C-alpha cells in the first residue's frame, strides 16, 4: 500500500514519542486498542493548573497509519484546553493524513486515545462528574 507523504513523515520522524509519569496528578493516560487487533495506543497529556495541555507523549504498537495518527494528535492537543482537545474528530485526523478507507480505524483509535487520556486526568484530579457516581 502506498502511504501519503504525511504518514511517512510522522512515521519516520514521530513527534513526542515517550512517556510521562503516570502517577503525577497532572498527567492523564489513555491506553486504547488491543494487541489482538494489531494496534495499541498510549497517549499521555500533562495539564497545567490553568487547564491547558502543556505536554503530550505517545507510544504506539501498530501500522504506519496508527503511528502517524497518534503522533499527529500529540501535536494537535498541545496548547489546547481539555474542552478544545475533546473536540478533535477522527475525520480531521484521517483528512490531515489522507488515510485510505481501510485505515480509518487508526484515526478512530487516536480520537479514542485523546478522550481516554482526558477522562483519566479528570478522574485523577477529581474533576470528573461521573467519577463521583462510581
Amino acid at each position, binding site marked *: 500500500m502506498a502511504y501519503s507523504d504525511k504518514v511517512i513523515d510522522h512515521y519516520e520522524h514521530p513527534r513526542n514519542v515517550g512517556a510521562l509519569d503516570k502517577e503525577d496528578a497532572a498527567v492523564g493516560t489513555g491506553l486504547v486498542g488491543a*494487541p489482538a*487487533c*494489531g494496534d495499541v495506543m*498510549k497517549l499521555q497529556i500533562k495539564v497545567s493548573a490553568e487547564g491547558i495541555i502543556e505536554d503530550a507523549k505517545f507510544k504506539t*504498537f*501498530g*501500522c504506519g497509519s496508527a503511528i502517524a495518527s497518534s503522533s499527529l494528535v500529540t501535536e494537535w492537543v498541545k496548547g489546547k484546553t481539555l474542552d478544545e482537545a475533546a473536540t478533535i474528530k477522527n475525520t480531521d485526523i484521517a483528512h490531515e493524513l489522507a488515510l485510505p478507507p481501510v485505515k480509518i480505524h487508526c484515526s478512530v483509535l487516536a480520537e479514542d486515545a485523546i478522550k481516554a487520556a482526558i477522562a483519566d486526568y479528570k478522574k485523577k484530579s477529581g474533576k470528573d462528574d461521573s467519577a463521583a457516581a462510581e
Partner: protein
Amino acid sequence: MTAIGSKTTPTLSRPPGAPVYLDYQATTPCDPRVVEAMLPWFTEKFGNPHSRNHRYGWEAEEAVEKAREQIADIIAADSKEIIFTSGATESNNLALKGVAHFYKEKKDHIITVVTEHKCVLDTCRHLEQEGFSVTYLPVKADGLIDLGELEAAITDRTVIVSVMAVNNEIGVIQPLAEIGALCRRKGAFFHTDCAQAVGKIPLDVNAMNIDLMSISGHKFYGPKGIGALYVRRRPRIRLVPMINGGGQERGMRSGTLPTPLCVGIGEACAIAKAEMAEESERLKGLQHRLLGGLRQRLPEIYVNGDLENRIPGNLNISFAFVEGEGLMMGVKDLAVSSGSACTSASLEPSYVLRALGVDVEMAHTSLRFGLGRFTTSEDIEFAIDHIVEAVEHLRSMSPLWDMHLEGVDLKSIKWAEH
C-alpha cells in the same frame, strides 16, 4: 550463455535504490538463461505448435515436447503425463474440479488442509456449493498434518486428498511419501500443490505415490503465466476439462500452447534439476545466518512453523511487540511480506499462522523472508542490520514492549477489542 549446472550461476543486478528482494515465495525473477532460451520462440520461431503442415509448426511442437520432457524429468514422471496450464491456480482448479466432476457418481468427498493456498480452498468452497463434502484437516503447531487424522478422515466416499507440498507462508514440507502411501492404500487419489516445491526439494511421483501435481513456472525462475499439471497415466486418472476447444493437451486443456513460455518453464526445470542440491545448501547457509544474526541481537523473536522440515529459502518470524505492517514500513529497503492483518483488506491476520495456533497478537507481528537464487550474503548482512535497527526503533515506541519490560502480562489486561 551460462551453462546449466556450472559454478557460474548468473547474478542479477539491482537497479540503484531498489529494495533488496526477499520475497521469493511471492515470485522469482526469470533466470537470464531461461529468458535467453525463450527469446527465439517469440520472433523467428513463432509457429503454432499445433500446426501439422509446415516447419514452423513442427519446430514449435518439438520445442514444447522437449519442455514437457524437462518438466516430467524433474518429478520423475513420463512426459505424456504433463499438461500445460497457465499456472498453479489453474492446475489446482483443474485437478480438483476435474477429478470431482468425473467421479461424482461414485464418490463425493474431498480432503484438504486449512493451510492450503487460497486457490485450493476457494475451489473446495465452490465444490461444496455444488454438493461435494469437504474435510479441512487442521495442522499441528509445526504446520504439518497429523497422518492419523488424515487416515481417519478418508472414507470410501473420498475421491481425492489434496495436500500442498510446501506452504507458501511458512515453507514447511508436508510428508508427501507417507501421505501418498496412505492414499494409495485407502483408494483415494493424491493431489499435491507443488507450486513452492518444484526446484526446491526432490520430487518423485512414483516413489511418493502422487497422482496429480500442480506446478507453477514463476516460483522457480521461469516465466509467469505458465504452469503444469501432472496427471498419472497408470493407473489412469480421468478429468473433466474446464476449458473446451480444439482438444489440445489430450483434451484436458484446449488452447494454443504459448511456445516461449513452455520453453521457459522447461528450461527452468532443467536448471533447477542440475543445480538444486547445491543451491539448497547455499540457501541453507543464508537462512541459518539470517536467523542466527537476528536471534543474536534481538530478544523475543519466534520462528513460525517447523524449522527442520522447511525449504531453506523461507523464514517466517514473529517480532513480538512490533506490528508487522509498521515493521515492513521500517524495513523499506527490503521487499518482504507480512502476516499482519493490516496488509490485507480483511483485517484478519494470516489464516496460516492462526491455523498453527499462533496467537492473533503474535500473528500481527510476523514477517516472511523469502531467499532465492539471486540472494547474496551481502543482502543477508544488510537485511540483518536493517531489521534489527527497525525492530529496536519500533520497540522503543511500543507501549507493549514497555509493559513487557515492566513484567506486565499482556494477557492479564482487559483490552477493548475494536
